[in-house]
């Protein structure tokens, strides 16, 4: 259903193990990311979905070592092409960011500097990793803008961000992320702030670009349907953890975690016409005082005493889930 990626035998470009990022606030420790593991193959697109506040953005920022205080990575490992990034010093991280792993943010209206031209900002991004003349930087930048579908790119280099629409600004941000031929990009809800038709355009363009350039993507979204059109694998995040993962088609057809099932039932496309959309009861728990055991327990209609104990990640045939009462039997029955 999407770009299938290169042979699996190749080592993954990004390998994340037990990543944990906590915020040490006055009110207590917020475990925003708490033991996240996944790997991203070359050219692969994986989707990271979850409700607001589940820790998706913090996961993304942790991968490039940009967690704002009072947060900090407290454990785990992030390996980019075999190189460990957790614990790497600032200079080391700076060399990696933008060059070997890049990130696109949610709101294109605020990610670009309003008082610098697009050309200046792209020049700075280029000069961060190589010494380049102004003329060469302009040529490279114009090329990058053309690639993301910005018409009349050489002239647009002298324009300021406010002279672009939201969709165009996001394309500029994507062009900046792609400047150094980066092989891994974290896209943190890059289409959420845009209107629906632009969303669809950018989505399909991103998919094309990733395929052409062999770029692997971690596509973060709270919207399962967006992710399902794009990603070959899906990771479902809840309260700082991955609660389910697997190939997109399989997860959509037969979710194993009740939370994933709830997310699916709340999608308009999945509902029977004329019926109310189902909602998952309750709200995301405060990450400050998570309930003992399974964090989804208070909202789960299948919870039992067993759920007072934290369910481990169960992995079988390319899928994984953290639940004592997996839905597998019920759905396939």
């Amino acid at each position, binding site marked *: 259903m999407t770009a299938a990626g290169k042979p699996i035998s190749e080592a993954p470009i990004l390998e994340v193990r037990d990543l944990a990022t906590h915020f040490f606030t006055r009110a207590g420790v917020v475990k925003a990311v708490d033991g996240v593991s996944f790997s991203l193959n070359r050219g692969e697109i994986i989707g990271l979905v979850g409700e607001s506040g589940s820790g998706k953005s913090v996961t993304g920022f942790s991968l490039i070592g940009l967690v704002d205080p009072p947060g900090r990575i407290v454990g785990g490992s992030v390996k980019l092409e075999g190189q460990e990034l957790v614990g790497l010093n600032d200079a080391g991280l*700076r060399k990696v960011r933008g060059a070997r792993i890049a990130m696109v943010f949610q709101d294109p209206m605020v990610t670009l500097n*309003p*008082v610098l031209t697009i050309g200046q900002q792209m020049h700075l991004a280029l000069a961060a990793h190589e010494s380049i003349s102004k003329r060469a930087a302009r040529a490279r930048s114009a090329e990058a803008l053309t690639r993301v579908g910005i018409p009349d790119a050489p002239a647009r280099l002298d324009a300021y961000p406010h002279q672009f629409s939201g969709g165009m600004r996001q394309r500029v941000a994507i062009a900046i992320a792609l400047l150094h031929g980066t092989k891994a990009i974290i896209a943190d809800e890059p289409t959420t702030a845009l209107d629906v038709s632009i969303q669809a355009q950018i989505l399909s363009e991103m998919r094309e670009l990733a395929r052409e350039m062999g770029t692997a993507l971690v596509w973060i979204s709270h919207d399962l349907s967006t992710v399902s059109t794009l990603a070959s694998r899906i990771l479902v995040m809840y309260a700082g953890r991955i609660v389910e993962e697997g190939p997109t088609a399989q997860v959509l057809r037969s979710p194993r975690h009740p939370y994933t099932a709830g997310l699916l039932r709340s999608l308009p496309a999945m509902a029977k016409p004329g019926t109310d959309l189902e909602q998952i009861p309750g709200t995301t728990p405060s990450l400050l005082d998570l309930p003992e055991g399974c964090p989804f327990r208070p909202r789960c209609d299948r919870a039992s005493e067993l759920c007072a104990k934290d369910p481990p990640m169960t992995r079988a045939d390319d899928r994984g889930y953290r639940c004592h009462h997996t839905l597998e039997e019920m759905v396939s029955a």
Partner: protein
Amino acid sequence: MSSFLLQRILQGIVIMAVMSVIVFAGVYAIGNPLEVLIPPEATQDVRARTIARFGLDKSLVEQYFLFISNLFQGDLGQSYIYNEPVLQLIGNRLPATLELVLTAVLGATFIGVPLGIYAGYKPDSVTARTIMAVSILGFSVPTFWVGLILILTFAVSLGWLPSGGRGDTAELFGIDWSIFTLDGWSHLILPATNLALFKLAIMIRLARAGTREVMLSDAVKFARAAGLSETTILSRHVLKLISIPIVTVFGLELASTLAFAVVTETIFSWPGVGKLIIDSIKNLDRPVMVAYLILTAGLFVTINLCVDIGYAVLDPRLRRGRAE
């Protein structure tokens, strides 16, 4: 852009015209200079001739239009006291004030802004806290007191620097300047420091507040995600983002200090225009007062215009606002 400029210049002209009326009427209302001009023992005849010579027998309106028509011929009148053309009188003293004020305001900006950026970038460091303590001091200690302390310390106790005057000057464009001689600098440094302290405090605060805000923005985070170094982020992204309030305050401070450097000029016997205006008020030297106030108004108008142009240069969003 050019239509904006034209509009602002027209605005400036209107302001100047209104100011000239207010100033003229105001100074007229302060008091009659006759008592100063004419000795009490003068004869009736001398009295009448003097009044006629200074045009004081004409009505206020007539005097005003006479003043304006002379103004357009570059003549601002004669000082009653010094018997010199006012323009020459002010022109002889303006360079002294100009170099003192420019040194103080530029110094405060070029020292204060980097300090403020640092304090905003690393707000919890000991250095940042020290910088902020200095800025609080700069705000709360009165200028005249600092001036006296500076003189007591560096001129009287240590004897390192002179306590007043302009020192040696060198000529450029037919004007004498202290900033081109070493001795001039040794005279300039204390009064300039005195004037700069308050402005330094303001610049530090402005730059710090701006930097703190901008550092948390997505734009800076995105620049970091692209691998930019912290130095590049501060010098290219942050500096430009925080520059608009700094330019505003720079302009305001420059104008108001040029107009009101009186206290410092008096303490350090700096022969600038501040002292001249105080004397002219004491002596009811009308032409000097009027010319000085109108020149000051012109200065404010010009500096504000420059600040507005500065905005448009610094913030592209404002340029668009006008184009559309």
